[in-house]
């Protein structure tokens, strides 16, 4: 993979923080500000969710966010275009489109990749497209230097885990525990051995996700993984801030509160990591405007 953003991602030694946010929740402008805040707060990549009527892999928090966005008729195209706007405004970390397969299918693969490339997308995660069904899409991604993000679960059997891990791009998404997205107090009993195993097999960084809602929860996995994904906790925070986002005089305070919240989620990291990200902004914007990723 020649995608420079993924190279940078994969060359890190830090314990990577990858947040999930629902695109256009609550609206396009706020989403951009949220993305920038996430990046500023230490995000090494951003998962950008697309609202769907039937989000099978998601818990109530993300379901509600979906519903909110659907009330505003937010489509996959809208979210792809949002990604482009994020790039223009300075988001330089890898951006992964998190979409259910049916949305992609309806848009059409060709049109999807056309828009994805134009808007600086670096990866695609389709939660309901398991390994067996994903060969075609993965190839299309690779053809465009995008990562098709694969998932493995504590129940994924040895053989299969090996196969998936060895074929993973971007990072390997390790599901921390059974169930849907959402904060939880406990993880699968075998989660650490599972992660260790995944690390052994994987060519790419191994990230743990599902249910992580604090830096201390994340740090449990620091030894057996290369980073962590936080989804519902962030979406829930955004939900809590909705009333303030919608009032002009409150927005700034709300963004500040959101940044503070993100800081709490991220274990202390060396200062320069953040600077590094900021440095690249200008290049990235250029790349995006040219309609292709670097």
């Amino acid at each position, binding site marked *: 993979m020649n995608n420079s953003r993924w190279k940078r991602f994969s060359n890190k030694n830090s314990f990577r923080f990858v947040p999930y946010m629902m695109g256009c929740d609550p609206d396009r402008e706020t989403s951009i500000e949220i993305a920038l805040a996430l990046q500023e707060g230490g995000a090494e990549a951003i998962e950008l969710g697309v609202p*769907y*009527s*039937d*989000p*099978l*892999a998601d*818990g*109530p928090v993300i*379901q509600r966010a979906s*519903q909110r966005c*659907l009330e505003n*008729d937010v*489509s*996959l*195209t809208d979210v792809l275009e949002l990604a482009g706007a994020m790039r223009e405004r300075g988001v330089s970390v890898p951006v992964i489109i998190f979409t*259910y*397969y*049916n*949305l*992609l*299918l*309806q*848009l059409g693969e060709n049109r999807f990749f056309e828009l994805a490339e134009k808007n600086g997308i670096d990866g695609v995660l389709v*939660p*309901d*497209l*398991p*390994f*067996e*069904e994903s060969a075609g899409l993965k190839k299309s991604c690779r053809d465009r230097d995008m990562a098709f993000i694969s*998932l*493995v*679960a504590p*129940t*994924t*059997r040895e053989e*299969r885990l090996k196969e998936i891990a060895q074929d993973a791009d971007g990072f390997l998404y390790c*599901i921390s525990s*059974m*169930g*849907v997205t959402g904060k939880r107090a406990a993880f699968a009993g075998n989660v650490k051995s599972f992660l260790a195993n995944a690390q052994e097999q994987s060519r790419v960084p191994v990230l743990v996700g599902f249910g992580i809602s604090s830096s201390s929860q994340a740090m449990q996995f620091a030894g057996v993984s290369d980073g962590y994904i936080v989804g519902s906790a962030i979406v829930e925070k955004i939900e809590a801030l909705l009333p303030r986002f919608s009032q002009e005089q409150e927005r700034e305070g709300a963004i500040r509160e959101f940044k503070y919240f993100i800081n709490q989620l991220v274990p202390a990291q060396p200062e320069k990591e953040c600077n590094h990200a900021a440095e690249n902004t200008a290049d990235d914007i250029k790349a995006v405007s040219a309609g292709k990723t670097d």
Partner: protein
Amino acid sequence: MKTEQLPDNLGRYGRYGGKYVPETVMSALAELEAGFSEAKEDSEFLNLYLKELSSYSGRPTPLTFAEGLTKKGGGAKIFLKREDLNHTGAHKINNAIGQALLAVRMGKKKIIAETGAGQHGVAAATAAARYGLECRVFMGEEDIRRQELNVFRMKLLGAEVVPVYSGSRTLKDATNEAIREWVRTVEDTFYLIGSAVGPHPYPQIVKHFQKIIGEETSSQLKDITDQDPSCIIACVGGGSNAIGMFAPFIDSSIPLVGVEAGGKGTSTGFHAATMEKGTLGVIHGSMTRLLQTENGQIIEPYSVSAGLDYPGVGPEHAYLYESGRVAYESVTDEEALDALQTLCSEEGILCAIESAHAVAYALKAASKYTENEMMVICLSGRGDKDVHTLISRREGGSDE
């Protein structure tokens, strides 16, 4: 390729089917596939299933010659395959018994199920009670409100009814929620799906446990005459009664007709005509035809009959539609309700509104045949559950 040999390794019927599910359930699907493959070849299991169908659920169900209906139709002799006479009142129990016994064979102690109007929920709770399984049924909050009686029945049967508050709070969302719950509890829980839908191997399993309908029909027809029927008709919601009825006939040349819910008309937005109005898409883990927006958001369908009110359809039906082997027609609410009334007053059989769709089609088509020809309708269920709806419709009320 003979349909007999479908689905393929990936659970596909042509381009339909497959497993579009989170990685978290893939191991459970693999376990289920293995468990089902074993069970299917186990004659002891088969005998237990058949014994329960006969000594518990009352099979074989009769094939009734409908003299009065035949007169009304003015053409082909009409026969009714009486799934309404099953224990709990519909074909749903065939599948519930089969899957529950499979759960037991696989060492599971708990089952979960989704339900819309409550028919499959009652069937699943029934089988769970009979075989000593713990049972939780996911049901949209909206449906819980509308189907108070079935909710009570499930509780009486010892099942827990779990209200679903997500999405439109109906069957589609209950199914999502059941799958989500299955992801959570996959290790000790069996997901007992209610129609020929869902990820592979579910469509195949449901067909396997419903094909008794067609098999009995085939042998009952042979007892009457050597002649093939001119048409076999079944209503299609998810497609379980239809696939069960069609199963042994698919590789013959007998015309098969699936009847979908045309609701207020397929040109209005209010229908559940997945074949006519649906497009290729993924729902509940399976590639099939479904009602969706241009953007791929799934549309809540409409039908006066709760059991046909499903935005997707079993993948094998999508395949049979595409291949042209089965004709799919639709019938409006009004036509179905009229047919229900006709069947009731001509034959003394109050069928489910779902089944009345098949009857309505038969009544429309009968005159295309001569009196020496035969049509067979799968009468999938009885209409006791629908009396409230019928009353409120007659009183000029709307659909609940």
